[in-house]
């Protein structure tokens, strides 16, 4: 019988690559995990990437 494929341990999936997803992904790597960031559109950033400036600090949103 074929051996079962070894699973990748210590990984997390984040679904949606807006600011929330991106932040979660970055924090997870800092906590020691490998992340799959799954985004339905062609780029990450979500709505924030469309905003001009963002409150409350009104600096650029990227």
């Amino acid at each position, binding site marked *: 019988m074929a051996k079962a494929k070894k*699973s*990748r*341990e*210590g*990984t*997390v*999936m*984040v*679904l*949606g*690559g*807006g*600011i*929330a*997803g*991106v*932040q*979660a*992904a*970055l*924090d*997870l*790597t*800092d*906590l*020691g*995990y*490998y*992340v*799959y*960031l*799954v*985004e*339905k*559109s*062609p*780029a*990450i*950033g*979500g*709505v*924030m*990437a*469309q*905003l*001009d*400036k*963002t*409150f*409350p*600090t*009104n*600096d*650029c*949103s*990227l």
Partner: protein
Amino acid sequence: MVEAGRSPNIEILTNSDLLSIKGKPGSFKAKIVQRPRYIIAEDCTACGLCTTYCPRHQEDEYNENLNITRPIHIDYPQAVPATYYIDPRSCLSLTHDTCQICVPVCQSKAIDFSQKPEEKTLEVGAVIMSPGFGRISEETLAKYSYGKHADVVTSIEFERLLNPSGPFAGEVRCLSDNRHPHKIAFIQCVGSRDIGCGNGYCSSVCCMYAIKEAMVAKEHDPEAEITVYYMDIRTQGKDFDAAQKRALDKGIKFVRAKVADVMPWGDHLRLTYSTLDGNHSFKPYDMVVLSVGLESPPDAQKLADMGGFKLNKYDFCATDTFTPLATSKDGILVAGAFNGPMDIPESVTQSSGAAGIASGLIKKQRGKSLIHKTYPDEKKMGDEVRIGVFVCHCGINIGSVVDVPDVSTYAGDMEGVVYYTESMYSCSQDAQEVLKDKIKEHDLNRVVIAACSPRTHEPLFQETLKDAGLNRSLFEMVNIRDQCSWVHATEPDAATDKSKDLVRMAVAKARHIQPLPEQTVPVNKTGIVVGGGIAGMTAALNLADQGFNCSLIEKQDSLGGNYKKLVHTKKLIDQVKKHKLVSVYTNSGLQQTSGFVGNFSSIISSGKGTKAKEVTLDHGVIIIATGANEHRPETVLGNTIKYSKNIVTQSELAEQLEGKGKSRAPKSVVMIQCAGSRGDDLNYCSKTCCTTAVENALTIKKINPDSQVIMLYRDIRTYGYAEDLYQEAREKGVLFIPYEMDNKPSIAEKGSKLTVSFFDPILQDDITMNPQMVALSVGMVPEETDTLSKLLKVPVTADKFFMEAHVKLRPVELPVDGVYVCGLAHSPKPVNEIIAQAQAASAKAAMPLVKGYVTVDPIVSNVDKETCIGCKLCTSLCPYQAIRMVKDENNRPKAETIVASCKACGICASHCPTFAISMGGFTNQQINSQIEAFGRDIKEKETETA
């Protein structure tokens, strides 16, 4: 975002849809399908040639369909990944099997029409759902002539109009005839607080973004007349009220009214509205902006079915007050706007919290798949100085004011500069590649970037330097955005001159910069949490769940803080006491803390009376969760208050209502909102009192439907789902009457008789009544933040709440590394937000503990022992206790820096009588050459004019 794009531990799967999720915490299997981009990512250089050749037009979705792009394009230059893609819905080849003009055009041969959708199975230990929010239906917007008249736009469209990369390159123009709109109206609550369209909730962010957009529009055109039509201004966030005040000062008008409709009116728009007094009026506008709410994402139900978790009645993810980041399915967490409408700071907080919980769930797997980034060896520094200067346009943010090409060529003439260039967005991912290439190509050994703020972007550029084999200290950044294009927006010539000055000074300094070694210090893998309320207990438990020892320090003799009575609190206390990794110190306080991130040492006084003792704890991180107390102002809105059984605070009322018997509900009560908050006594909004008051009003109505409840308010701030309670209270007959600060209600008490008088804008008359009770929404004040602030050297705001490192990007970190904040000590907020924030703080605090070491910023001070005379001046001056005295081989006292404690403030260096101390990255030589470079130009100018 660029950071996410560069991380070796984040695999970004764009164009991907979820197909299924199966499994349990620790072992989920997620199937996804990745749709083709038709472009080979590794080969695309993002040159953009293909777009210019593509013959087919298509609406530009990134710009909200306000302008045209081509099927083959990239959304915006800084997009991550910086790869073009082909939209299969309009591409001629993919729809009609013709064209393919782009294929030979692409020099990198990156276009590949044979790509097929690819299915992948991801094996993961946990899942975080963050699919954000959806759009309000056009049907709802049609009421305001959206779709009928081009100048009725949504707020998202307006964001694009304001944006330099938008349809008119940052100019606000009417879409109907390209004129600049002079009169602009904002309509609030479009698609929110509207049961008609199914969205009863308040979207929480639109008041604040409308203020922001109005302010930015005013910056674009100071003559513009802007009016915001609103029901309540909900700027309940930390320091958000100040934003509205700034808007008022700028001349933006706020009108409390319901907008009946918007109709085309010749070239203009006619907006009809009704004010509280029942009057209908109308006004002409050039442009009307609809402040659209946040709706649940269109595929929410599908996601919920696949993930096996529940949605709430508004189709957002269902969560519980006490587990605000957990879906109903174990191992699947939620963060961001999918967890209910929220702004960026709140989303970022939730994300950190969710990451921390996920980390706790699968801590045994930690690190197993982690890829460690390596850098090329640092290249040897020759004697020759080879500086590269990069000047950034920042879209039009800098480029529209400062003459960037001029500044860049100016730099080219300077001594030591061997390469200079300008760039559109220096921070974009492809710009990092260009930077690396240029460093190699021109053998650069110093880099100067003139762009935005080093506070946000320096780490990114330094990382790129390291990737290119340069020490990260060989870098100078000039902020020509804040210091030139922003502050001198109306004087382009002066802004350009100043940019040149700054660049010249930076280059002068760069000639003298040297590589500085990066040092690492091991970390003590434990934490302490100060404050044993809900926030502190949650944070401590979370840190312990992630596998770290932690001490919880509480001032009182029992845990629980403000919420001792909640069932959830009792459960928490139990868990904290049982957890092996948590040690509880009650009747205790922090006396002294020294050290630095990873290596703090604190003295705790513990116990009372004869049992009192001092304990020393070594720890790596510290979380502040010291909370806040109910405010008890002695005057409210100018009335002297004597609290009694008739004049009570809302929390006292809540307590009374918990009792038994019908009489516990007052027969008549006047509730007064913002009693002490929002400029009455405290400057800020206490955020929770509106909801608490409405809850109490509902309880009263439930106990005795005949009770008369009147609420006098300025703005009812039942944001989010609490809006449902507000609606219910109105239905149940609670009367809500607004008051203005120039006509405040008065409260008088004679014997047991209470008299409240106020102006009723609905009846347009003064009203006097004699209620049985007056209930005051008194707000809250932070608890003793001053002492901790001094002890830990962390700043507080003017309102005495702890001040976070960056409101949006680092909402739970304090400016001192290794110190975090959560709960009411940060700002007023309700329980669910307190818990999410505590979870976020413990996730952030766990990071250095997980890493196991900290890297010391190399710009620390350095004592030249030869020159040091051992006077000890520096040790007494250093605010961080980062200098100690040691003996040299001849037994003479010499100063020495404790590098990991040094914050590089430079106080020691500036006071040393023998100039024995220099700061890495800020040596005397460097600073002097910078100053000389500044003077040089003045001298030149003087000789010119002479």
